[in-house]
């Protein structure tokens, strides 16, 4: 068991059969390989990011991990349990949050949904009270308990959903796009909470996202999935290296100037950055994601009439696109 991992997948596949009308009577059958042979292990207490563009197969993986979808092939175990065979037994040990779907009672105050969890998971009274108190405090839900769920903002609802998923002390928490559509403050609160949950309680966390910032702030390990295949499994820094990803420096100059050129600092023949786009006084300058931005900014400020600047992180689509380019 020891090296088997708390969550373990071996060549897991999910193939959907999609029927489509083609012409009057003919029906076309098409196979969608949503998850196409994925293997990984997650140890107890790890916090792992599962990222990939839309349609990559993230949600399908999560659904198989909860048991609401049966794999078409491969072997999958969570805490030693085959999820699709023993969905109900597993449900007592895991927590799930689907970003775009709520498990809360729409027309009733948040507190009623929690009462329901209390009974549904048969949580001992004291345990329930303690956990609720803790979630209310850390997720800032105090004012919201008596508010009907339909009146909550998306960010408030998401916090409410996360609390609902944790009242029964799950050993592992899956979050499917927990920050999608959230405002900056809610995003920060959710991230902070997950960090503490993982650090203090040792809850294993697997979260899907297409926002690299989530991963940057939360996960030491990241898995990249695209077209149902695992493209990368390792640290975030390593991902930038593999993807040869670039960050973007957007500078506003006092006037329109020819593209900025900076030679490599250590005298190599690779320039330190390259101008990707020039639009009037604004220039977009790409540089390797692993390089530090500060010395570049200092050198630009010394040589050019700099008015304003911002740094953009690479987005996941760009990282994956470059990954394809580098591994033919």
């Amino acid at each position, binding site marked *: 068991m020891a090296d088997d991992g708390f969550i373990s997948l071996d060549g897991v596949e999910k193939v*959907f*059969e999609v029927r489509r009308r083609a012409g009057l009577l003919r029906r076309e059958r098409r196979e969608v390989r949503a998850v196409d042979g994925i293997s990984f292990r997650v140890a107890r207490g790890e916090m792992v990011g599962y990222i990939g563009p839309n349609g990559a197969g993230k949600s*399908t993986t999560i*659904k198989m991990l*909860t*048991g*609401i*979808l*049966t794999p078409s092939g491969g072997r999958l175990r969570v805490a030693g349990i085959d999820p*699709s065979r023993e*969905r*109900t037994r597993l*449900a*007592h040990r895991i927590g*799930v949050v*689907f970003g775009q*779907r709520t*498990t809360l*009672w729409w*027309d*009733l105050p948040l507190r*009623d949904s929690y*009462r*329901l969890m*209390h*009974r*549904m*998971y048969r949580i001992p009274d004291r345990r329930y009270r303690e956990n609720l108190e803790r979630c209310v405090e850390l997720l800032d839900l105090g004012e919201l308990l008596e508010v*009907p769920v339909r009146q909550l903002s998306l960010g408030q609802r998401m916090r409410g959903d996360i609390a609902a998923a944790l009242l029964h002390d799950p050993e592992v928490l899956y979050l499917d796009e927990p920050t999608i559509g959230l405002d900056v403050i809610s995003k920060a609160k959710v991230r902070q909470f997950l960090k503490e949950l993982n650090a203090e309680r040792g809850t294993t966390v697997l979260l899907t996202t297409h926002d690299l910032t989530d991963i940057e702030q939360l996960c030491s390990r990241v898995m990249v999935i695209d077209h149902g295949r695992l493209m990368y499994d390792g640290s975030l820094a390593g991902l930038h290296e593999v993807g040869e990803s670039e960050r973007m420096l957007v500078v506003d100059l006092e006037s329109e100037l020819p593209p900025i050129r900076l030679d490599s600092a250590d005298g190599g023949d690779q320039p330190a950055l390259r101008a990707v786009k020039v639009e009037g006084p604004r220039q977009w300058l790409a540089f390797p994601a692993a390089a530090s931005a500060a010395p570049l900014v200092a050198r630009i400020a010394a040589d050019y009439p700099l008015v304003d600047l911002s740094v953009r992180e690479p987005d996941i689509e760009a990282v994956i696109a470059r990954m394809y380019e580098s591994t033919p």
Partner: protein
Amino acid sequence: MRLYAVVAAGGFRRYATYRTATAAGVFTNTVFGFIMAYTYIALWDVRPQLGGYDTSQALTYVWLGQALLMTSALMGGGFESELVERIRTGDIAVDLYRPADLQLWWLAADLGRAAFHLLGRGVAPMCLGALVFDLALPGSFWTWPAFLLSVFLGVVVSFAIRYLVAMSAFWLLDGAGAMQMAMLAGLFFSGMLLPLNLFPGLLGEVARALPWSSLLQVPVDVFLGKHTGWGLVEAYVFQAGWALALLGVGRLLQTVATRRVVVQGG
């Protein structure tokens, strides 16, 4: 079991939050009650003892119909559109993941709803009707609990029918058609428009044997003291039989549908 008690309480409270809608509904029920009452008076004037009811029994039928219209969801409604929507959007997957039984869950919620509608939408029109018209109220106290039990069984049958309608959404692209058909069938075969006793010949016999007659016709006849002794037991057995049969079919469809969702993703 306590879980389902919380679900039922939630079903009750959920409807209780919409006070204006409840007031508007009571008003509508009352207006309809008056219209139907005067229609029935005219009808029974011409044909006294129609269907074995005298005029005051016929009026009682009208007002009980209004009182139970929402309680027993005679024309459908309550939870199906919500469940159909969850099936259509795939949210049903989230429900499946919970360690709770889908059918019992929705049954509990619907019983909570029915309890609210009996109190919130049923009592007021019934009292108004009794004030204005000469209704045939039960002579014996025991008729009241006997009536309530029959209403309860009727609500379960009504739930079972509506659950089947909702389950059809797993196979039909559009649940609206099934819901409309169920509404028409309910309107006609529950006896909401005309007591099933008035239906002639074979049509009447068939109508009285269909599950919808459990929703209104049977409870009203219990209220009017038409079923007593073994007759009462038979009436209960009729209702409970339909309830069990329909719940059983619903459970079967649920099992098949669940298997499909788990394999096909809905």
